[in-house]
């Protein structure tokens, strides 16, 4: 095998793929990156058996072949070479020789035969969606905050990709709050799949600024994200996601329009005094024009701040300040709609104009 490639490109690709090549003691070969040249196409592959990252490397010249070497070692070696250097790889048995100007080294690798096979998406029956990377990144960040890391409830440790009324939406919940974002309107094919949050975090980390569009392909039990030179293939979570549409309240009878920044500020103030009670705060609407956020009095003291608002109906509700702050952070517009009910029902938060993002929080018992 032979490759000739620039330091920058190689370094970027290696840094991207080597992230997941760590720490599997059970199968040491997973610490390695597979470098394969097949008909002038160079791919760098790593996997942790939950997902695989494949980076297609643009090279100036190459000869077919395949090898695996320790990913972290190779990445760090290449990182430390001067920028602009042209790097040449060549292999002999399981040894990889790297030469770049005055620098050269030999890394002991392993046979590619031991490296796991990476499952592939069957293009024929795959369901494919396309979306701009900016929008996808933004939407993922808005939803991932609500996902859980409680391994005893596997369905909640992922993001649910689902179609409803020809709209593709993503949703996540940890049982206390739920976030949903409508991604694409008027889709033709249907999907219901839970993608592990950890895999999506890797997608977020791998997306570079120069990729404009991301392609998401679902198969029976796999998902593939393709953007720029990178492909990420992940398993899906084999569980059923709660029927969350039922949870989104339709008839909250108290609804207030609030300035997002000001609400964030007074929530933070109240949160300072609510640490010892698990972040619990009280939101209250007072006729004719006040919305107040206060902490429950405790040993540190108490706090009560108010905002100007148009109030139709009086009411109050207890909730976790951290969840409210997360939601406010995920909302984008200057003005938001905060609605709740005087009966036991979740709190609903939305942007004032754009209806695509929905965030709900379960109230605490008062």
């Amino acid at each position, binding site marked *: 095998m032979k490759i000739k490639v620039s330091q920058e490109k190689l370094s970027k690709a290696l840094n991207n793929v080597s992230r997941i090549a760590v*720490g599997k*003691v*059970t*199968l*040491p070969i997973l610490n390695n990156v597979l470098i394969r040249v097949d008909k002038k196409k160079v791919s760098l592959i790593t*996997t942790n*058996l*939950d997902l*695989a990252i494949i980076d297609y490397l643009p090279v100036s010249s190459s000869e077919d072949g395949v090898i695996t070497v320790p990913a972290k070692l190779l990445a760090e070696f290449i990182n430390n070479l001067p920028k602009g250097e042209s790097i040449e790889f060549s292999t002999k048995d399981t040894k990889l020789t790297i030469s770049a100007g005055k620098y050269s080294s030999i890394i002991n690798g392993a046979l590619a035969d*031991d490296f*796991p*096979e*990476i*499952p*592939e998406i069957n293009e024929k029956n795959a369901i494919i969606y396309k979306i701009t990377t900016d929008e996808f990144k933004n939407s993922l960040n808005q939803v991932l905050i609500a996902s859980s890391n409680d*391994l*005893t409830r*596997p369905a909640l440790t992922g993001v649910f990709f689902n179609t409803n009324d020809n709209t593709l939406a993503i949703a996540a919940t940890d049982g206390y709050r739920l976030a949903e974002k409508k991604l694409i309107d008027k889709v033709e094919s249907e999907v219901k799949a839970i993608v592990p949050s950890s895999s999506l975090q890797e997608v977020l980390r791998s997306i570079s600024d120069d990729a404009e569009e991301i392609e998401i392909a679902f198969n*029976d*039990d*796999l998902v593939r994200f393709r953007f720029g030179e990178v492909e990420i293939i992940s*398993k*899906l979570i*084999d569980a059923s996601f709660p029927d969350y549409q039922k949870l989104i309240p339709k008839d909250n009878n108290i609804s207030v329009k609030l300035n997002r920044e000001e609400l964030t500020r007074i929530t933070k103030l109240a949160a300072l005094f609510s640490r010892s009670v698990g972040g619990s705060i009280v939101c209250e609407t007072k006729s004719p024009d006040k919305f107040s956020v206060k902490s429950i009095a405790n040993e540190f003291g108490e706090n009560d701040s108010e905002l100007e608002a148009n109030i139709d109906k009086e009411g109050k509700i207890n909730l976790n300040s951290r969840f409210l702050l997360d939601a406010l952070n995920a909302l984008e517009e200057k003005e938001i709609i905060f609605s709740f009910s005087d009966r036991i029902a979740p709190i609903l938060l939305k942007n004032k104009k754009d209806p695509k993002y929905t965030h709900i929080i379960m109230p605490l018992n008062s």
Partner: protein
Amino acid sequence: MFDVWKNVLAEIEQQISPANYSTWFAETSLLSTEDGEIKIGVKNSFHIKQLKTRYLDMITTALKNNNVPIKNISFEIKSLSKPKTRSREVFISNEVLKNRLKKIQKTNKESSAVQQTGLNNKYTLANFVVGSNNDLAVSAAKSIIDAPGTRFNPFFLYGGPGLGKTHLVQAIGNELIARNPDFKILYTPIADFYSDFIDAVRNGKGKEFNRKFRKLDCLIIDDFQFIMNKEQSQEEFFNIFNDLYQLNKQIIVTSDRLPNQIKSVDERLASRLTWAGAFDLQLPKFEDKCAILRTKAELMGYEIEPEAIEYIAENVNTNIRDLESEFSTIIFTSEVRGLTPLELINKGSVNINRPSKLRPASSKQIVEKVAKYYNLSVKEMCSKSRVANIKTARQVAMFILSKELSLSTNKIAAEVGVQDHTTVMHGIKKIENDLKLNFSLRDQIEEIKEKIYG
């Protein structure tokens, strides 16, 4: 049908590396074999791909060898590692609950006996695991139980903390009572003996104190090393000891070191304590540790995989108490998380403190630290000097290099500046032998290790 899969797996296990086997096959199951349509359950799509492309032939052959008719083999995602209902407490039936309550009440009643003899009946010989580390002491203990006050009198038992001294001597006491209900036994840590004595003297009841002890058929003194610097109680103890000994009453003493290594213990007393020999409890070897854990698991009714036991045994190198506490922690975590202990270990969620493997120091660092500890320069220590303290320091350095870095004797010879690897072998052997009896050396080496890793 599902036992067939075990055979198939066993066959495959022979053919591939353990790493590959545990990664790809450990979580598989045979879902159905109907009409030759073989369905195999696997963890996720990565496993399907790997099994299909790399191991299909192996699986087919193994199935055929087990006389399973095959038309087609397919894979299905079916994770075996889903949380099992291991939290058995939730599903306890009333019957079981009643039985448990009975047990608890029963032990409550029995433990009232503790007040008189100071013995705790949870310590028995039956739950004391015998291994090469303690078999001598145990056989002596048995002969005491058969004939107290004869051959092994006094019975002096010593060893580091957490190796089972208290357990063994209390077990002797409990067995003696079980066989001779009228036997008068007293178990007391030396510290309690001391404070009781002071109280008695203060209240003018010194004579009663004396009489109480002299009526005993068996006296068990625990943690004798704490007698240090308490000369008056030592004198009293010595008198009681002599009287009981004259009457052929059994005396049992435990300590963490030999009497002549305890500062300020009267020489007469020291020599008398070891009259009938001194028995030591040593650190358990790997096999002993496994046996201890297995017994514990059995007694407490836990399920734990042999691999998990081996993992714990391999990684806890301090003493039995730590071994048991590590075991309990793992069992507890596994119940809380709903994973088996082995799954927990494989997930890396188990952190056993093992300073000696945390940060391997370089051989140079070790040599420097040892020299510094003994207030020598590296040059002095690695010279040919035969002055006693320099020689010992050199041998300690050899010992630590060999134990911590597993260097060859030739390499060690080069590190500490001796000519010959046989000198190194002798040095290591010497320290190993000394360690058995010399507790200050043991402490010194522990301190040096702390410095090396600290």
